[in-house]
């Protein structure tokens, strides 16, 4: 019986844990509750993925009302995979959070952090799991509002401006999405995704439906920080508390990219998105511009957290690039990179969290000599960085490999070359940090820097090991991503 209710428990457990965290009014207790809820959510998502792979898509009727009258949860390969990414990254980062948050956030606000954290988690999971477009919007609101809160809780007052800018941009994005959904409802009379996909065909040549498409693309693109709608991201990541940065880097934009896939492929369909609207011709240049511009800015950025933020924008470019190739391999590469990038970026941000815990700064110059003072932390950073560049035996290599294969499949050898060149840019910005950490001369520090505590190192290293494990054994990730891409493109056998 429990098994049949897993879809709703996936979202409702963190959703109700949020208010309870507020009521507990105690930092440690609410952390304990939030962490337990997070690990339960991870196990539920594993069970769901397992079930989807065996039995095919799961449907769950909320309130017992059949779709399209009621709200339906619908889980297939792709969102089961996205649920796993979110809950996995979340479980690791929240385990990391206790020591780090106590260090970075005013103690009186400890329980507020975990309240917001749980709401954020349930928001993302709710977006990923649902089969109803208005339900997407509701949970998008929950996750957005709580993410503004989480950023602003940092002691650093610059976090306030960062959170405010994110709030303004995020609200515009959400409004666009709402307009798009409303227009779709007006033309089809339904909010259920599967139902929309069926009914949109008869009205797909109306201007209203096309404009709805434009609003949805722009709105979700803003949320996903697709170039050139990325301005909010670097500061939001840089000034959030460390554990939160890692959480966002691994989850926030991933869900938005998932939504893009959902709207382009499931609801509007390949034919409308890429033949009528010629979306690939817009996405491809934007993706390339994003990769190169953001990587170049990252090279000149001295705040390492901001550097990683720009790097994220470039990595989102790779995902969009995969989508714009409109082939099974391309979309597989995009979905793979969702998973792989979540692993590497969260690991890097956690390593920086360790640095910040001991050094109190993540400016490049302040990292001088840390390779020897904090060998485990910087070791993690080096491995995560190599994964970001795409060295073989790491997950970064796997994503780039599939992306290049997809480009070559379509005789776009120049694209493959560009992907390789962009990896060199990543090598440059990662190397700059490594160089300072290992070969830079540490100035006269008054206090000797110690290695970060095990409570921070263990979660960081779990992610690093995952980076290498999934770089070697790709059967799970490539298998699921491939099946998801086939399902999206409608070529499943």
């Amino acid at each position, binding site marked *: *019986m429990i098994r049949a*209710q897993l879809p*709703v428990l996936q979202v*409702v457990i963190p*959703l*109700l844990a*949020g*208010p*309870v965290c*507020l*009521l507990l009014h105690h930092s440690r207790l609410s952390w304990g509750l939030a962490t337990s809820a997070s690990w339960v959510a991870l196990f539920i998502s594993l069970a769901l993925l397992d079930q989807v792979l065996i039995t095919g898509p799961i449907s*769950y*009727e*909320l*309130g*017992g*009302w059949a779709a*399209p*009258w*009621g*709200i339906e949860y619908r889980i297939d390969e792709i969102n089961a995979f996205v649920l796993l990414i979110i809950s996995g990254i979340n479980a690791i980062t929240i385990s990391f959070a206790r020591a780090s948050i106590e260090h970075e956030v*005013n103690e*009186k*606000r400890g329980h*507020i*952090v975990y*309240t*917001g954290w749980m*709401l954020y988690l*349930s928001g993302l999971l*709710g977006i990923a799991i649902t089969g109803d477009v208005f*339900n997407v919007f*509701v*949970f998008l*609101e*929950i996750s957005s*509002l*709580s993410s503004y*809160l989480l950023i*602003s*809780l940092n002691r650093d007052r610059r976090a*306030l401006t960062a959170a405010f800018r994110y709030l303004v941009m995020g609200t515009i994005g959400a409004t666009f999405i709402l*307009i798009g959904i409303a*227009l779709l*409802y*007006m*033309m*089809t*009379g*339904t*909010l259920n995704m599967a139902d929309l996909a069926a*009914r949109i065909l008869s*009205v797909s040549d*109306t*201007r*209203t*439906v096309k*404009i709805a498409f*434009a*609003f949805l693309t722009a709105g979700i693109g803003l949320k996903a920080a697709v170039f050139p709608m990325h301005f909010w991201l670097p500061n939001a990541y840089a000034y959030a508390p460390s554990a939160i940065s890692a959480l966002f880097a691994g989850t926030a934009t991933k869900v938005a990219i998932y939504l893009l896939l959902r709207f382009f492929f499931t609801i509007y369909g390949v034919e409308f998105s890429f033949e009528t609207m010629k979306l690939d011709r817009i996405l491809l240049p934007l993706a390339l511009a994003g990769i190169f511009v953001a990587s170049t800015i990252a090279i000149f950025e001295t705040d390492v957290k901001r550097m990683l933020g720009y790097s994220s924008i470039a990595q989102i470019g790779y995902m969009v690039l995969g989508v714009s190739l409109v082939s099974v391999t391309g979309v597989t590469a995009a979905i793979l990179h969702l998973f792989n990038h979540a692993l590497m970026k969260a690991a890097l941000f956690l390593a920086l969290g360790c640095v910040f815990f001991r050094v109190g700064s993540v400016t490049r110059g302040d990292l001088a000599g840390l390779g020897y003072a904090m060998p485990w932390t910087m070791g993690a950073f080096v491995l995560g960085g190599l994964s970001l560049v795409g060295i073989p035996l790491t997950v970064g290599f796997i994503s780039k490999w599939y992306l290049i294969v997809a480009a070559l499949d379509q005789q776009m050898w120049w694209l493959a070359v560009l992907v390789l060149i962009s990896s060199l840019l990543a090598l440059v910005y990662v190397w700059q940090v490594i160089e300072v950490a290992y070969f830079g001369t540490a100035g006269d520090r008054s206090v000797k820097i110690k290695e970060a505590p095990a409570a921070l190192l263990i979660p960081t290293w779990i992610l690093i090991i995952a980076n290498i494990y999934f770089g070697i054994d790709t059967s799970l990730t490539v298998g699921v991503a491939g099946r998801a891409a086939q399902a999206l493109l409608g070529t499943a056998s």
Partner: protein
Amino acid sequence: MLGLLTVTAIAIARMDQLFAAVMLFGIYSLLSAALFVVMDAVDVAFTEAAVGAGIATILMLGALALTSREQHAVPRSRHWIALSVVVITGAALIYGTLDMPLYADPNAPAHLHVVPRYLQQSMQEIGIPNVVTSVLASYRGYDTLGETVVIFTAAVGVIGRLGIVPEGVVESKTGGMEHHLILRITAKLMLPLILLFALYVQFHGDFGPGGGFQAGVIFASAFILYGLVFGMRSVTRVAPSIVVRTLAAAGVLIYGGVGVISLLLGGNYLDYNVLGDQPKDGQHLGIFLVEFGVGMTVAASMISLFYAYASYKREE
């Protein structure tokens, strides 16, 4: 009326005086509420009037009290980027409307697909006359749970950011207006009526326009009025901030808890049919409880927003 709306919107955009802009926002909300009435969307109009024209104005004034009344000039170059984005968006919207079904067209897709079941069967399936409430609280009850959580999140956000009022020591910056005799007497006369009206709206949602959202806002406005006139010290004696915060969380838990109970009784999440002996009884009980949860969270969230603004002190 649309013309009036446009004029107000332009006036807001051109206004440098933030105080006046806030007032115009109130007018804008009231106008749109009237427009919704014309369109026969009474429930929406009610919410807009209570939230947009009522609480939102007060909260914006609260925010203004913490900052300044004037806005700073923005470099002109930024204007052009912003203007072009706005123009493109507006043009896109107008372009999109060209193929829309006509207003009040009975054959519009929106009226033909899911709506007929809501209109025709809600009485048998749920058994309450107000279809808006049955869609809101039952057919799409899960969305409403989400919206309640949104409001809760917003309240947590403001409480978390503006700092938590230390228990017992309430800095009485907004010292109240006890010395204004007329205000005091009028407020005293109004308060019981407002509270009574809030309760009516809360429990009448099954039959006419109303429900937890509107009732919660009206309920909260009574407390805010009390706070404004008699000062923070008096209002926190009636409703200490810790109690208010607890109620905000408890409202969400009531709503979510109804879902958990229906799980335990063997139904799907938020399936009210299993709550009673007869499905309709279950629906009645379920809707009653979730509306109660909504009202509680909304009222408590609004009051704590007001507290947070009114007693904010810069820290560190």
